[in-house]
């Protein structure tokens, strides 16, 4: 259960963070500048996975009124991001077309 008691420092988390960071650098460097705008809206949508934290504090058994209120706002804000982020990324990507081949 997250944070019922303060968690100690888990080195494997740092391990995961650093490896994911390196992976991120390598992946993003390969993205064509053509797609930098949709890339940014996609990463934005994916970062809305913070909704996970918001769901826990909102729905938790015995949540305080403060937790429920702030949690609710956080779920709404993150959901706006993930829904609009994925949709607008797809809307942008749909527009990128190659030249039609001449017969």
């Amino acid at each position, binding site marked *: 259960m997250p*944070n019922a*008691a*303060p968690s100690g420092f888990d080195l494997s988390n740092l391990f995961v963070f650093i490896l994911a960071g390196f992976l*991120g650098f390598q992946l993003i460097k390969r993205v064509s500048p053509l797609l930098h705008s949709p*890339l940014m809206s996609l990463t934005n949508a994916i970062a809305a996975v*913070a*909704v996970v934290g918001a769901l826990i504090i909102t729905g938790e058994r015995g949540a305080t009124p403060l937790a429920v209120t702030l949690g609710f706002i956080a779920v709404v*804000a993150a959901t706006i991001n993930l829904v609009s982020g994925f949709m607008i990324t797809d809307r*942008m*990507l749909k527009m990128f077309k190659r030249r039609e081949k001449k017969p």
Partner: protein
Amino acid sequence: MDPVIQLLYLVAGVLFILALMWMSHPSTSRRGVMAGQIGMLLAIVGTLLIANVVNYELIFVALLVGSAIGAPLALLMPMTAIPQRTALSHAFGALAIGLIGTVEYYKIAQLAPYGLSFAMIALIAEMLLGFLTFTASLFAFAKLQELVTGRPIILPGQQWMNLALFIGAIGTGVALVLHPEQTVLFPIFVAIALAFGLALVAPIGGADMPTVIALLNSYAGLAASAMGFALDNKLLIVTGALDGASGFVLAVIMCRAMNRSFANVLFGGFGQVQHVGGPGEQRPVHSASPEEAASILESASSVVIVPGYGMAVSQAQHRVNDLFQQLTKRGVDVKFAIHPVAGRMPGHMNVLLAEADIPYDCLAEMEDINGELPQTDVALVIGANDVVNPSARDDPKSSIGGMPIIEVDRARTVMVVKRSMNPGFAGIDNELYYLPKTQMLFGDAKEFIGALAKEIAALNA
């Protein structure tokens, strides 16, 4: 945590990585969006399976409200407003992270006092980044939407104020880590973080927004990672790290494309001073009407079009496509040269041209097009200024000296669509306009390019 939930989180993380991998090319990029969506669904389902998460009604209401706002936002947003939307969504994301941190903080504060905890350090980092990114992104949104001036806002003693805010944020942050039970400090800490965000973006001008938006993207990611550390959740850590790396790489690319350092972009107050030349030093330029410009274009065999923020402002992209179609019909080889910092966010021009149905294989990056420009008949600049200013290359003393440019001055003929002779964002004169081979096409980009396309269409008929 339940292994099933952990497994769902793991698959979600892998899908997010695949999503970024597939974004590398237009042919696979939509698959990337699909992967991201499935990953998000798994993450949410996994979270709802946590035994302690019970209040489903409230959660579903929140999810519905968020979707009901988010979907129209995505569908109705005009493509020219993509930079504003991105800034706004960074603000929403950062707000969510800051609020989650707040709730977690009050939980810890109740359990205190106890010794130094790593979770509290991570929480403070999360909230500092979250709250400052929230106000910084809102301010960036206001600048992009032109609710406030796009010019840098510099107050006297601003550097000292920033330093004081920074020390204040770190000071209260450290105090809270050591004594979480001192809840009176918490609102002060949040207020300082919020003020710090505003202070960070105030001195940054509109044309530096590509870098700033990328950097805010990075902060929002790092805040999510910090939250992952605080909640001991590896999915959040991985996703935040990917997002943080993405924003950082884009910010570095933007800085390189302007030959400027992070420090210069963030604290330089670039574009603050308008060097307005005295009325006595007006120099003659050649200007041309749509008819004259059309007659030059129709006899060209190669044309390179350089779009800039001015094209976005006047929403000229569809007229540009008309011109592109008409010229292509005549057998003219038309290419588009995109400077990395053209527009208000990374890739802004590419999206606008794609929206106007211009095929992306006609789009060329700066490094690839510069070699071709000396053999190009006509370079047509639409609403771009500083990114084609030869003094960046020729005059090391210029405020944009050393910035890589699209060398349109090497083309045989240069045409510049511009509303007036006002300088660009850097506030400096552009030698390009006074060259004997340059024709100034004065007018609104949308109207002028539309007229130009009609002239060529008449010749084609």
